[in-house]
């Protein structure tokens, strides 16, 4: 459904992305793994259409979308909730931009993820993990079919992060939108994704594409298996080359 072909991007003289090719199929969970500052967020801004590439095409559902906005659902690294809106008002925000939001559906989702009692609370009264859940539900409720998540859990502590990863999988398995998930954690990528793209450091090129063989539904016992560990080692080899240079 999403295909990216020969994408180049530079900020002035600073080349950030070089010949990026990738694709995301329907109902597929794809992770992009790369070091900080390699250009991952830049890639999302290109898909989101707020900046344009020098070369290459981004195709969504057979339509070229270079520079077109409003075609993806998005969840940023910071929860980016509006402090003056209640939880309920926040989750319908993205949907609100394209028409009248479905408040009933929003309430059902909040109920499902155990946030019903916080419907009328303000973000300031929520914990970090709860804010990220609200941010994710907001992305789910906007009707675009591709969900782009930019390091959504990297600001959370380890305990909350593993909880949130499990939570994300359980919600996603119920509502299988296509997902593009940026992360700099190898474990997170393996645990969540069907396929992983590994980026080099800046200027980012596509270093490897890895298919994750583990079946779903997954739970944290997967993290202790030797297969998991082996795959982690394998991906680490690619990353090591980036550190050595």
């Amino acid at each position, binding site marked *: 459904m999403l295909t990216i072909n020969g994408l180049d991007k530079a900020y002035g003289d600073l080349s950030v992305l070089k010949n990026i090719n990738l694709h995301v199929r329907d109902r597929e969970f794809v992770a992009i793994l790369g070091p900080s500052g390699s250009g991952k967020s830049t890639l*999302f*801004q290109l898909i*989101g*259409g*707020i900046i344009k590439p020098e070369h290459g095409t981004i195709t969504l559902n057979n339509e070229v979308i270079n520079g077109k*906005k*409003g*075609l*993806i*659902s*998005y969840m*940023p690294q*910071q929860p*980016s909730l*509006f*402090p*003056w*809106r*209640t939880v309920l008002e926040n989750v319908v*925000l*993205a949907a*609100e*931009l*394209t028409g009248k939001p479905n408040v009933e559906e929003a309430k059902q989702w909040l109920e499902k993820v155990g946030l019903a009692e916080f419907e009328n609370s*303000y*973000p*300031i009264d929520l914990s970090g993990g709860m804010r990220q859940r609200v941010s994710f539900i907001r992305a789910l409720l*906007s009707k675009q079919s591709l969900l782009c998540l930019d390091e959504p859990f990297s600001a959370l502590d380890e305990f909350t992060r593993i909880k949130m990863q499990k939570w994300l999988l359980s919600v996603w398995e119920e509502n299988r939108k296509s997902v593009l998930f940026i992360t700099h954690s190898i474990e997170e990528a393996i645990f969540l994704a069907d396929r992983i793209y590994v980026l080099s450091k800046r200027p980012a090129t596509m270093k490897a594409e890895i298919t994750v063989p583990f079946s779903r539904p997954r739970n944290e016992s997967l993290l202790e298996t030797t297969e998991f560990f082996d795959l982690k080692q394998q991906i680490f080899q690619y990353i090591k080359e980036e550190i050595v240079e």
Partner: protein
Amino acid sequence: MQQMWQRGGKSIVFLLLLFILWELLVYITATPMWLLPAPSDVIKEIYNGIWEFYGHLISTMKLTLLGLSIGCSVGLFIAIILYRLPKANQVLYPLLILSQNIPTIVLAPLLIIWFGFDLLPKLIVISLVCFFPIVVASMDGFRQTAPELKHYMEMVGASRNQIFWKLEMPHALPSIFSGLKIAATYSVMGAVISEWLGAKQGIGVYMTLAQSSFRIDRVFAAIFFIMLLSLLLFGVIRLVEKLMVKGRKEGV
């Protein structure tokens, strides 16, 4: 709430001490009342003259509220225009600053020459002194919109209009309220000054009369009511702010 009471309580105690000192000094030096009345004289005057004063107070209050509403609406409108049209901003902003350099005392008589003794020149004076804090505060509020929220809105494809009305405007509310508080204080002064220049009723009129008949105790009574009016306005705005600004850390 308790904290507020503690803070307020301390300043009230301090103020009381000052008044006692003042009372004593007037008593010891036997200063005549037409030069400097003791606080007790002022309180007596307030108590005796309250009904006579009442009409003036209401009249000034109405004038203040009307002028403040007009000034704030105009200020907010100008701020929105300037923020959303950068070209207009380049042309108009310097002019706005210049407009604040015209002394009210010079401008007011001119306005009366042009517009007579009606309501209009008074409202212009009040609006002129209170629209500027609103413009500056609102523009600052709009500009200080959290960049990550703006980035989010752009990524999900919000239009310029949506970004302004759903994000920048509500985000600027606390800032706008700060401007409003300053404007409210100015507006009372503006109203009194505009009344000095010709009106049938109002604290300004009362003050001029009191001054010309050397009733300094009445002048002080008028000052007291001006302060009371300012505090009242301030309190109301604070209340509205509490109701409207939600989910944010308590400001001062």
